[in-house]
């Protein structure tokens, strides 16, 4: 029979057991009566016949036993029996059982929780039909992605390139380019408070690719994708409920986007998950869509305008490689035909892969850490079991003497660990559920993928496998060592062989040393990460980051088409805000540390350029005269902007030290003139992309402040006054306010001031600068928090382990220690003897742990900031901490030594 057949037959046998054995009584009875009749036929009397029959058959109880054993042999029966015995043994030792189950619950629960997270981020199927065929298309330059980190959604080809891809490819059903923009939205005919939200600008193909059908209404038409005819909108079910009260006559109602009225033509179900369209800084699902109807896209001049978001569905049966090859061929043809596409390639990625974003290093780290925790838990339990098995030596010896083979004994012991593991896994799953629920509610804003963590069957299966493996890991060692029985010795009264023997003791010591090593690795990791986060968040941003509030507002082109009007609005708004009580200063600007993201090309006479690569450029920002004082940026040389610098006076600029170091390393920059804008030889029409074209004079040099994120050093930066540069005086503005007290308290009042100036204008993205920093480090903090928890748990387990071992050591050496004391050794010296043993173990464990931490440095280095993964101070501190903890944990049982009464100890046996 094959293995499967054998297994099934075991199962069937168990099922049929009772029936078959009952049936046998009947069978035996029938045959007995037949025999009796035959006896009678051959002349025996009626009563004699019955006895004769019984005699002929022999011992019927024995026969019945033998038949029953036919239906109850097999390893399944044996296992079930052992499990029952194991349950009984655990109930008799509730203390041990509780400790073991809790330890296991922690280890297995943590594993399940982390795996659930990984599942949500990587394995769980996407909520779309045939999701395997959904991909995103990205542009590459010289082989590298345009938006390398995270592979989120931006960084796709230009509109014209996408059109050529769609026309010439044969492996795709449909593809689409789209975008999302921040816009002011108000609901109904101007009723209710406006909100600023991400609006999706999508051709109808977007929904077709995802196979999302409107709940009510219809998708956009091709005709509606033209500018002028695009005033239709689709809203989400969530928005329909929240702002339109689920009005059944929702179609043909209006929605106001950037002061233009759109007609609602569809309600879209909430199927598209948040991570698909979130951009990291802002989050939240898209709730409003309008047709993509930008006039500039479909012209040859716009072929270089890359960066769209893309979505595509491959034809059924087409593989990723085929699609990639298809598009690469087309991209090569485009590169040959259009100079702007030179060196531009294409990369196709499955949609599912973009889900995990740049969380990969964090996930790997957490997986490693959680495995360590489980290992520590297993080692602890192995230790406990080893200690416990020593008490069972006589029982096991008895079993052996009665005929149990070694395999049977091992199975018996393993059954106990299996039972513990299964119960521990069940409790662990409960813990994981709670933990995940808490995590979901508290997830960092820029990790929306974590908002729907749950247990599904994959997690349950994983948990089950882990618990089996665990039970083998911690059960095998004690089971094997515990069954090496010297019969004669063990059966003797008072025999102290087996688990008390040197072999088993050494095993326990090794286990504890390993525990401590792993604990140390976790400690080092947690410490490094914590130091990183602290350094990252307390980065010198180059400004005075306390008491700063920021908010965003947008002046729509419809009503503010004149840059002078924008200037007037911003200046009036800032003036009003400065008069509010609690406000020290306020400035209207376009960006604030730690990010910026707006670059301009420059024409610096001292650095003439003839090739594209040589053109000087810098980060660019527009502000007003209160910029430096609000932000707290130091002025190093020259002068600040003044109220006298206005639309009619000569344009001026402030540069930062990095700028001076790059472009004026030996000369004084003050008074030099520059041109802001691309050089003539590039032939870019002025105003057709976001470039200026004016000349400025440098009047001052400021200290560096972060403009390229928290980690990268500051780029050269140039700041000008928006009042002096109408070409780049756009409606998007931020206002930064310095307050005397808690910044948030003023948020509502400032919003009201804004609405007094323009009733339809929301005051959006209101945060303190501190919160902005924290938001960017969200993922990092999350990892640090979890790893720190693990480190604490690991240390706790190690402490329990060492405590157990030292207690046992002391108990075992009681005689010897008593003799030493009796012979005259001071108690201090005797205590030191005991401590020396555990400290030696700790030292070896620490050494191993440091080696392990060194080996694991690659795992963690990607997440560190400002500190090396081999930082000696951290290593040393962690090792010393471990030794101290071990010393403390050993001191408690060791103190018993001090209370030893040598006379009494030596008298008892």
């Amino acid at each position, binding site marked *: *029979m094959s293995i499967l057949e054998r297994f099934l*037959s075991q199962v069937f*046998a168990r099922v049929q057991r009772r029936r*078959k054995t009952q*049936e*046998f009584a*009947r*069978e*035996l009875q*029938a*045959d007995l*009566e*037949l*025999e009796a*009749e035959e006896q009678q036929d051959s002349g025996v009397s009626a009563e004699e016949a019955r006895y004769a029959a019984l005699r*002929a*058959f*022999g*011992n019927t109880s*024995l*026969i019945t036993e*033998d*038949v029953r*054993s*036919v*239906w109850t042999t097999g390893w399944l029966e044996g296992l079930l029996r052992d499990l029952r015995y194991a349950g009984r043994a655990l109930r008799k030792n509730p203390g041990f059982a509780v400790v073991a189950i809790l330890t296991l619950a922690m280890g297995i629960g943590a594993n399940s929780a982390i795996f659930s997270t990984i599942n949500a981020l990587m394995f769980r199927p996407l909520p779309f039909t045939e999701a395997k065929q959904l991909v995103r298309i990205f542009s590459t330059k010289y082989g590298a992605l345009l938006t390398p980190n995270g592979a989120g959604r931006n960084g796709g080809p230009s509109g014209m390139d996408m059109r050529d891809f769609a026309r010439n490819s044969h492996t795709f059903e449909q593809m689409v380019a789209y975008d999302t923009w921040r816009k002011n939205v108000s609901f109904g005919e101007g009723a209710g408070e406006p909100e600023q939200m991400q609006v999706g600008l999508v051709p109808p193909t977007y929904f077709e690719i995802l196979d999302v059908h409107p709940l009510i209404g219809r998708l956009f038409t091709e005709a509606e994708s033209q500018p002028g005819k695009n005033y239709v909108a689709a809203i989400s079910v969530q928005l329909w409920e929240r702002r339109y009260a689920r009005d059944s006559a929702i179609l043909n109602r209006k929605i106001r986007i950037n002061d233009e009225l759109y007609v609602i033509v569809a309600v879209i179900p909430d199927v598209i998950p948040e991570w698909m369209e979130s951009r990291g800084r802002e989050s939240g699902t898209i709730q409003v869509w309008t047709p993509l109807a930008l006039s500039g896209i479909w012209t040859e001049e716009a072929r270089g305008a890359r960066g769209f978001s893309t979505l595509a569905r491959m034809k059924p049966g087409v593989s990723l490689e085929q699609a990639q090859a298809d598009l690469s061929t087309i991209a090569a043809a485009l590169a040959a035909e259009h100079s702007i596409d030179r060196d531009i390639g294409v990369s196709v990625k499955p949609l599912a892969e973009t889900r995990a974003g740049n969380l990969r290093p964090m996930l790997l780290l957490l997986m490693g850490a959680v495995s360590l925790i489980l290992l520590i838990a297993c080692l602890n339990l192995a230790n406990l079991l080893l200690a416990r098995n020593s008490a069972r030596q006589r029982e096991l010896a008895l079993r052996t003497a009665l005929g149990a083979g070694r395999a049977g004994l091992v199975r018996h012991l393993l059954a106990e660990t299996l039972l513990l593991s299964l119960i521990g896994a069940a409790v662990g799953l409960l813990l994981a559920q709670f933990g995940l629920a808490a995590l979901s509610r508290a997830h960092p804003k820029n990790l929306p993928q974590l908002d729907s963590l749950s247990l599904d069957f994959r997690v349950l299966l994983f948990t089950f496998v882990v618990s089996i493996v665990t039970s083998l890991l911690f059960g095998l060692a004690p089971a094997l060592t515990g069954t090496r029985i010297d019969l004669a010795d063990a059966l003797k009264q008072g025999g102290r062989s087996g688990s008390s023997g040197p072999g088993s003791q050494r095993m326990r010591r090794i286990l504890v040393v390993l525990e401590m090593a792993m604990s140390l690795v976790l400690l080092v990791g947690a410490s490094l990460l914590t130091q990183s986060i602290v350094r990252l968040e307390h980065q010198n941003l180059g400004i005075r980051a306390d008491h700063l509030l920021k908010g965003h507002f947008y002046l729509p082109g419809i009503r503010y088409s004149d840059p002078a009007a924008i200037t007037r609005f911003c200046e009036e708004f800032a003036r009003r805000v400065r008069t509010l009580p609690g406000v020290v200063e306020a400035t209207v600007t376009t960006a604030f540390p730690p990010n910026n993201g707006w670059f301009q090309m420059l024409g610096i006479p001292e650095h003439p350029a003839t090739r594209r690569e040589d053109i000087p450029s810098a980060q660019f920002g527009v502000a007003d005269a209160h910029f430096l004082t609000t932000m707290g940026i130091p002025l190093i040389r020259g002068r600040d902007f003044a109220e006298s610098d206005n639309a009619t006076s000569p344009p001026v600029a402030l540069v930062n030290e990095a700028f001076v170091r790059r472009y004026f390393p030996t000369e004084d920059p003050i008074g030099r003139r520059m041109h802001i804008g691309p050089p003539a030889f590039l032939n870019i029409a002025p105003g057709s992309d976001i470039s200026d074209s004016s000349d400025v004079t440098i009047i001052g040099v400021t200290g560096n402040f972060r403009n390229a994120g928290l980690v990268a050093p500051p780029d050269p930066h140039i700041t000008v006054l928006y009042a002096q540069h109408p070409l780049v005086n756009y409606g998007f503005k931020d206002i930064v306010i310095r307050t005397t007290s808690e910044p948030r308290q003023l948020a509502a009042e400032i919003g009201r001031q804004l609405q007094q100036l323009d009733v339809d204008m929301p005051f959006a993205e209101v945060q303190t600068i501190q919160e902005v920093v924290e938001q960017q480090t969200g993922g990092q903090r999350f990892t640090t928090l979890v790893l720190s928890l693990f480190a604490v748990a690991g240390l706790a387990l190690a402490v329990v382990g060492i405590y157990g071992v030292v207690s046992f050591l002391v108990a075992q050496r009681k005689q010897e220690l008593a003799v030493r004391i009796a012979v005259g050794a001071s108690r201090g010296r005797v205590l030191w003897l005991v401590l020396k043993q555990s400290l030696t173990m700790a030292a070896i464990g620490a050494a191993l742990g440091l080696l392990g931490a060194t080996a694991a440095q690659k795992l963690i280095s990607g997440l560190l900031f400002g500190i090396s993964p081999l930082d000696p101070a951290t290593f040393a501190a962690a090792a010393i901490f471990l030794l101290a903890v071990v010393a403390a944990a050993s001191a408690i049982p060791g103190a018993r030594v001090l209370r030893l009464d040598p006379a009494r100890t030596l008298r008892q046996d």
Partner: protein
Amino acid sequence: MTAKPSPNRTELLQGTLDMLILRTLLFGPAHGHQIAKHIQRTTVDVLQVEHGSLYPALHRMERKRWLASKWEMAKDRNREFKYYRLTPAGRKQLAHAESKWKQIAAAVARVMWPASEDPL
């Protein structure tokens, strides 16, 4: 199995009992008692199957699916008995056991009577 107290005592292995039972059932379904009686009669009382071996053997083979059982009314006695019959797997096992037995017997004969060509 025991033999009547006679000079021809024969000791056989458990596997051989299985083979004999299977062979007996080749003729048609029978219940435990009938099988025992049949073997006794056919071997002219040389082999008497002990019931203590018979029933466990029958159930073992039933568990291995070499036999199938059914409760049927006996023709001549007005009572139900548990009749066993061969399954196709059982037939295969019988052929297998038979060929093994012949192999062993031939090997034994070669040792016992090396010169002669007589098969046992």
